[in-house]
């Protein structure tokens, strides 16, 4: 059983002496600076062979930590965007460099920490870390700010005014339930927006932010000092009662209950950026069922289901397949099953969490019994397979139980899908779309009206770019605080 020190604290937080530095592996000692850490620690197993160890914050320590971050974070406003992009990108690029020990450690820990297979962990790290590089971060800044210099100082605005984007005094980022790597993305954006950030990671996404903080400390200690990664059990009231009022902005990733609970505990004036759990769906049009296309479509679809073992809000729960193409929807379901089987060799599923595995068994068994009853249902899943494709002739939306379980349902025309999404509006996110030909624009319009916030090809579905409007909001602009400076206009000399 390995133990990973799953926290990062900036140097110099006033507090009791840390007793634990000596017991850390040498490369991890940077995570803890004398005089900063609280004395109580606890450990939690996240898999059979990995334990996470973290300081148990008491309310007084949490308060000092927030105050310390606010104080140090003020210096972020003296930094220029270019230098932040360079440092954040340099730290991020290390996760893509095969020779870098940070990448090696990430790949070593990620399967156990996030419950992924080794191959999927690599796929996830490659997909996520690509967005942490300087090039992608610079594109994110440009996509969000036509004049990026507003992040560095006042710039001319409309009507002769001047505008400037400031960071918040402190961003508190709570991650209860997200896929590995998501919390690093949030931290990078917060720092880019010049806010110090206190991250409470989800238990299964605690490794990457700590490793990222170490990488950042190596290249830019000042920036790393504006970041803290600290876990406490979700809803620990006494800690959050100190932390939440000190935040200028709170970002929360979590289920409906978590988001509602955080919203209820925030001071009225504190803005909240909430990413609640969502569903993805996919539309497969006739054009994608043609002889030369069907195999490619099925493989792309299989990869979209398999990514993150279907745990992402971008992951498709079901595929609506258009009737009248070269393959029937049921035949395409068989193609998808074949692609899932092939993909299982390259990107095997991670160990199934008992609750997900249980739901898979319930759905599989029930639909196999329905198939035996001859109602047109078909279930594809060879013995021992870690995926399921279920063809259901009823086109009504059905949620997947996850665990690489994909529904395939027929629709006479893709135009019908927007109607089938009624009632799901608050939960919709990505819609994969392929084979729609010239109808794509009108379908995108319909899907957007139905509540979908992203339309993507099946191939790109699981991998939104750094500048995507996650859940319909701005990735970077949502994190800044605008200041308008209305300059008195000099009266124009009369001629």
């Amino acid at each position, binding site marked *: 059983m390995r133990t990973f020190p799953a926290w990062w604290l900036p140097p110099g937080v006033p507090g009791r002496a840390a007793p634990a530095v000596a017991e850390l592996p040498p490369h991890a000692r940077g995570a803890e600076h004398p005089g900063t850490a609280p004395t109580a620690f606890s450990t939690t197993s996240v898999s059979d062979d990995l334990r996470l160890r973290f300081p148990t914050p008491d309310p007084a320590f949490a308060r000092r930590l927030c105050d310390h971050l606010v104080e140090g974070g003020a210096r972020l406003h003296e930094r220029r965007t270019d230098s932040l992009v360079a440092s954040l990108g340099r730290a991020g690029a290390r996760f893509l460099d095969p020779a870098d020990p940070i990448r090696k450690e990430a790949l070593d820990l990620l399967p156990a920490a*996030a*419950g992924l297979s080794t191959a999927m962990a690599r796929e996830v790290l490659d997909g996520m870390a690509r967005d942490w590089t300087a090039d992608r971060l610079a594109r994110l800044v440009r996509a969000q700010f036509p004049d990026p210099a507003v992040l560095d100082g006042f710039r001319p605005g409309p009507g002769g005014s001047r505008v400037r984007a400031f960071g918040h005094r402190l961003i508190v980022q709570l991650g*209860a*339930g*997200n*896929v590995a790597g*998501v919390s690093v993305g949030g931290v990078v954006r917060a720092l880019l927006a010049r806010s110090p950030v206190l991250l409470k990671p*989800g*238990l*299964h996404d605690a490794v990457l932010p700590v490793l990222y903080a170490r990488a950042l400390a190596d290249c830019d200690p000042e920036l790393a000092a504006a970041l803290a990664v600290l876990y406490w059990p*979700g809803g620990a009231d006494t800690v959050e009662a100190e932390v939440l009022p000190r935040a200028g902005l709170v970002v929360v*990733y*979590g*289920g*409906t209950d978590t988001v509602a609970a955080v919203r209820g505990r925030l001071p009225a004036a504190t803005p909240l950026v909430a*990413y609640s*759990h*969502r*569903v*993805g769906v996919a539309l497969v049009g006739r054009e994608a069922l043609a002889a030369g296309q069907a195999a490619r479509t099925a493989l792309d679809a299989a990869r979209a289901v398999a990514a*993150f*073992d*279907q*745990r*992402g*809000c971008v*992951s498709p*729960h079901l595929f609506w397949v258009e009737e009248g193409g070269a393959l029937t929807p049921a035949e395409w379901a068989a193609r998808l099953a074949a692609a899932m089987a092939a993909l299982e060799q390259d990107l095997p599923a991670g*160990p*199934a*969490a*008992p*609750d997900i*595995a*249980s*739901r898979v*068994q*319930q*759905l*599989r*068994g*029930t639909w*196999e*019994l*329905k198939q*035996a*009853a*001859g109602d047109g249902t078909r279930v594809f899943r060879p013995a*021992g397979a*870690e995926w399921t494709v279920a063809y259901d002739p009823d086109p009504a939306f059905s*949620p*997947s*139980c*996850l665990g690489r379980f994909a529904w395939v349902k027929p629709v006479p025309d893709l135009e019908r899908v927007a109607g089938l999404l009624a*009632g*799901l*509006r*608050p*939960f919709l996110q990505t819609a994969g779309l392929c084979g729609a030909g010239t109808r794509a624009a009108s379908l995108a319009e319909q899907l957007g009206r139905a509540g979908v916030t992203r339309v993507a090809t099946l191939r790109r579905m699981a991998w939104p770019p750094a500048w995507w409007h996650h859940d319909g909001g701005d990735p970077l602009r949502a994190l800044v605080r605008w200041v308008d400076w209305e300059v008195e206009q000099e009266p124009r000399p009369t001629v």
Partner: protein
Amino acid sequence: MNGTRLRDDLIGVMGAGVGTPLPDADFDALARRVWAHQCERNPAFARFCDARGVQPGSWSSWRDLPPVPARAFRERGLVSPGPAQAVFRTSGTTDAGAARGEHRVPDLSLYHASLLPNFEAHLLPGGARLPMVSLIPSPLEVPDSSLSHMIGVVEAELAAETRYFVGRDGRLDEHALRAALRDAEDAGDPVLVVGTAFAFVHLLDALATGDTRFRLPDGSRVMETGGFKGRSRTVPREELYAAIDSRLGIPPRRIVNEYGMTELLSQFYEPVLAGGARLHRPPPWVRTRVLDPATLEELPPGREGLLCHVDLANLGSVCCVLTEDLGVEPPEAEGHGFRVLGRNPGAEPRGCSLAMDELMTARRGPIR
């Protein structure tokens, strides 16, 4: 009719009581007949078994029976086509918005034959015939609740007299209940209090408001059942039992947990009145296994997995039912039985995709 003879044989086994062991070979012979009967009545089930290689000629053991998920009871007529004497429905609290599970029971005599000796052995041993105070609605109020039906049968066959204090809407008649508890205290005769965990919490909250405490007479006992599925307030079991002790005067060693589900016609009790361990004990006509959630292979004692029951009382539907409950069979030294751990104890979500249950619960709000 073969079905009638089989039913009578099963009733005979149940009539021998929970203290009469049913050797595995005898259980197996009965299970085979039950399975053949079910295949005959339900061709879809026969094809389902066939697809898993379980055919009439290939029977080797009841352990080969393919588990049918409890979820399948939500598909109308799938597990029990044909006429029914009674239709029991699940409470529908776990997945609001989804169809409720439905157990069509063609012949209630097996249900009664199974529930009575088991209830008697664990709650009214030694011929005790106590007045029953029920926090479970009467079967007249909720005819499609298998739990209410069970209490109605106990009322008719085993209890001295029964009074109901919770209506079909779940509302507690607090005034009448206080009076009844006071009377029981005054009369000095022990009573049996039955209710769901949630009803007890409701009652105890009400008693705590005025700091009311009863001391029900010695020999009184409690049957508590059901968890807190879909409820806003949950209370750890130790806390609940301590509160029952302090508010009703019934100590934990006289509080028996019943684990049951609409999909099964037999129940599981903890043998605490007899001084046994807090483990749920299957009656002789039920075999419970703990299965690996991913592979459905049987797990050895000590390993947590999904509870799967083969209940011969389920003659009219399917007898091998895979639950969504995690459980564990403790190593043998601790005694015969299993411990129920619940749906997903203590897990943190691993992703940001909306899970099925969460979607169903969340949709209750915006849609209705």
